[in-house]
């Protein structure tokens, strides 16, 4: 079940549209007015809001890229397999 879900997710990520959507999403999230949400001098557990947002959001975006690259390797393998056949 989990494996199937993963396969399905990876398959969706292969679409160029997915790339584009995440790219645009990234631009939106890194700019005003979206940044206004976190643009406050508040802290959570003593850590400033903006610092928290950027330093959690950033690794997350890197993880998304990592997922994308997984799909790429994935499809590449498949290509090679079919080529071998």
């Amino acid at each position, binding site marked *: 079940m989990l494996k199937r879900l993963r396969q399905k997710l990876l398959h969706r990520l292969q679409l160029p549209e997915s790339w584009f959507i995440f790219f645009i999403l990234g631009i939106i999230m890194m700019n005003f007015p979206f940044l206004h949400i976190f643009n406050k*001098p508040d802290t959570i557990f003593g850590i400033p809001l903006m610092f928290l947002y950027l330093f959690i959001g950033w690794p997350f975006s890197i993880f998304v*890229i990592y997922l994308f690259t997984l799909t790429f390797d994935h499809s590449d393998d498949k290509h090679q397999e079919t080529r071998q056949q």
Partner: protein
Amino acid sequence: MKSGLVPAALISIIYTLLIFLIAWYARHRKETGRSIVGNPYVYSLSIAVYCTTWTFYGSVGKAATTGIDFLMIYLGPSLTAFSWFFLLRRIIKISKENNITSIADFISLRYGKSPWLGALVTLIAILGIMPYIALQLKAVSTSFFLISGFNQTQSIHIPHSDTELSLPVGLLLAIILSLFSVIFGARTLVSSERHEGLIAAVAFESLVKLASMFAVGLLVTYGLFDGFTDIFTRFSAQYPDLFAQLFTLDSAGKNPDYIPTFTMFFMSMGAIMLLPRQFHVMVIENSDERHITKAMWIFPAYLFLINLFVMPIALGGILITGSAAGADFFVISVPLTTGNNTIAMLAFLGGLSAAAGMVMVESVAISTMLLNYIFMPIIVRLTPQAWFPHLLINLKRLGIFLVIFMGYFYYRVVGDSFMLVNMGMISFSAASQFLPAMLGGLYWNRGNKAGAITGILLGFLTWFYTLLLPSFSRSGWIGTELLTSGPFGIGLLKPTELLGMSGMDLWSHSLFWSMLFNISGYIVCSILFKQNEHELDQIRKFIGIFDLERRRSYRHTETKRLSKPVTITKFTNLMAKFIGEPDAHRAIFSYIGNREIDASGNVSEFELPDLKRFTEKTLAGSVGAAAAGAIVDSFLSDMGSRMESVYDIFSTVRTSLDQSREALFVRLKASEIINRTLDLQIIMDDLLNLLLKEFKLDVAIIQLSSENGTLTVRSYQGSNRRPISPKHWFVESRPYNDMVLLDRKAHIINDISQASGTVKLEQTVAEGIVSCAHIPILREGEAAIGILSVFSKSIPGLFTEEFIGLLASLAGQLAQAVTIVREIEAKDRERFQKDLAQLEHARVMRDMEIAQQIQISLLPDEAPELFGIEMGGRCISAAHVGGDYYDFFKHDDHSVDMMIADVSGHSVGAALIMAEVRTLLRALVNSSLNASTILHTLNNQLHDDLTRAELFITMFYAKYDSTTGRLSYANAGHNHPLIRRKDVASCMELDAEGLIIGVKRSVVFEERGIELFKGDVVLFYTDGLNEATNAQGEFFGTERICDHLGSVSHLPANEIIASFYKTVAEFTGSDTFQDDISIVVLKII
């Protein structure tokens, strides 16, 4: 506490040596074929050359003064990494295919190899990078002063006996970096090759950067403070206002030094791809496209890690030192003030690494551009000399020094008037000017040279005016009047408030105006002006590269040809002049590979443009695309040759298939013509007229070889038509025809005036022919059955590979038709002959039947009746006509003659002889001659005829007189008749001496006689009876005849005969007899 000059200098030197060693080792490994650089991790680390001292020192400085917005410089590239899979891969693919050497090369190549555009990009790169290199020199020298414990000045003064020795650190650093770059970045001229030593050093430096940043970060966060939360809490308690300011983004623009997030974000997104050094490490130094995938997340992760401790270090620094002053060097000063000298030294090395990596890659990348687009255009105008390779490589080395020392110059002039980050932003802003032309070049096929030059030039001028000039001005080098009141006092033209646009920070203002002018200039000019042919060529390469897979299945069609063929050797010599002989030879060998080379050591005419392109590409790897194009073009014009467009035979736009609509139409028409009729003459005439009508041909001829192998003109269409004679101009092409038949390949002369002198074509030239082609008419894998020759009077270079392919395919179709028609003709002929033979046979058969009828009528219908005897006779011939003959001659009521004869053979001749015998006998029997005399006479009469016809006759002649009951007889070699006497169980043979008739003249025949009694049955027969054979090969034989005769002797004569036929048929098992069988029976009643 300061660590002092000597240890700092010593460690710097040792570290530099270490870098040298690593670079040297990597190069050594590459040369032995075991690269340590060709993997995605080193690739990702080398991209981290993006993190310069700006990151290393400047980030902390910026974090301490304007706050967390410094992160935008890293979030931008991190986001750009999303697009690498499409964008970077595409750029790398194009660059590899075209031996791209730099970003200037890339942009110049896309816009029709424009040298002006390349020069412009180079100029921007040099000017744009100047502040950036200055930044590095500044950072390193400042950190060196810090670590060695001197006050910040431009040089270190060491007291020396009576004079003071001055040690200019910045200058020294510039010299060392220049040397390093020259050694590892400009060892060979080929710039498109990868510099493994350089990359290894850069990757190692990236590691050092990260490690030392981490060391300082850990020291500050966990050594001096108690983790992130502790720093944040203490800072917010001590400086609540500053805390709020640093952790929020200043969207209102209160701080004059503040750069809006979007500006930084946008510029950094562009810079990661467009800075010359980034383009260099990401594209030129990429060893495998697949490395991109890993780099896409490793590089952002690197950025994340190196920035993780920036904020704590900045806040900790302020807490420790008490102010944000000198925050640019917190990374060193915080460990130093807290007494952690080792960490401080490590941090210094990290900063040194950051600077060295950047300066080396940048200077190599820009010196390549400098060589290709500033020096080369001048060198190209000179005549190539043997020392050119040396000149070029040294110019490149000079370029490296030039780039670094321009940075040094800027450092000396502008120096300390800017913060580190802000100096870097000037470079970023310059690099952004390449963005429209770059992206447009990759995705917009209308984008053209005029647009790119206009856009980049306008953007550059705006950048120069609104950003670089103010930076000089601020340092007091130019004077501040310009900034405050504008040029000549015109307020609207103030560099920082162009057209009165005030209230904007310096960078956003500059970015806005430069991008506005750049993009609109690019778009407007691209729409206004048309692309020239060179550009269209390149657009196909750049935009169409992702159709590559699809395109590969179709054949590339050549649209250019060389007006005069140039040999491989000449191209090689040309290359050797620029890149040296060994490289040139290596390149050309790799090119020739498995290509077909003709007898004179050259490639085919169709491949020449390809060879020309290869030469260009190889040169481009060293001197840039534009210079390479110029070199090859001037070389060709010296040779008296040039590239000219192939006459586009298929005038309309090509369809997406590899065939134009015209080609398909002609093929369709041709197959219509061929299938319409079986008349070869009509097919050939129509086909030639189709060619003449559809293409610019003037004469078309089809020759077919006849069965004995001689070519004859079968169809001749077009002008200059006159009877084919040995004096016809066309006959001059005979040698070509012979070659075509021999090697079964098309032979073309695309320009008759350039044709080799071995074949004289004077008359042809006199007829006005300028180009011709001879194509074999053949079916796949078979010998040529003819030649299709076409001639044009107007267009040299008409026969492209594609056109010849079409003609060959038509010739193939024609060959098919010819073969089919010939086969049909041959079949018709065969059938006709068969019919004729059948007809003849039928006629002969009818004649034979008639002959048979006649022959049968020559035999007596029935035996004469005579008192006391009963006779019967019958002949069944094996063939239509036979040689058997029997007859009865009744003289009176009591005497009768009977004879039986066998002419050898069953031919008509035998039948005729038989007829002659009959006639002669009729004349003889009426006389009262005895049997032997009759035979004697007959022999004499027939001898000549028989000898001539090579025939013989055996004959038995008997006379019976019923009054006496005596049978007198004579025999001429015939089977002995049998007598079966009543009550006697055996047969008696009637024998008499006598030779076969026709052997000898005057033969004496013995006359014998025998008395017959009542009940005797005499059987006369021919050898067909006793020699009838059964399936076992046994003869019917005399014995069986005798036995059978005995068993049927009581029957009437005719029934005896019938029973014999029946018995023989049963014996042989067949209804037909092998030989004629004649039986005559005489029965005495």
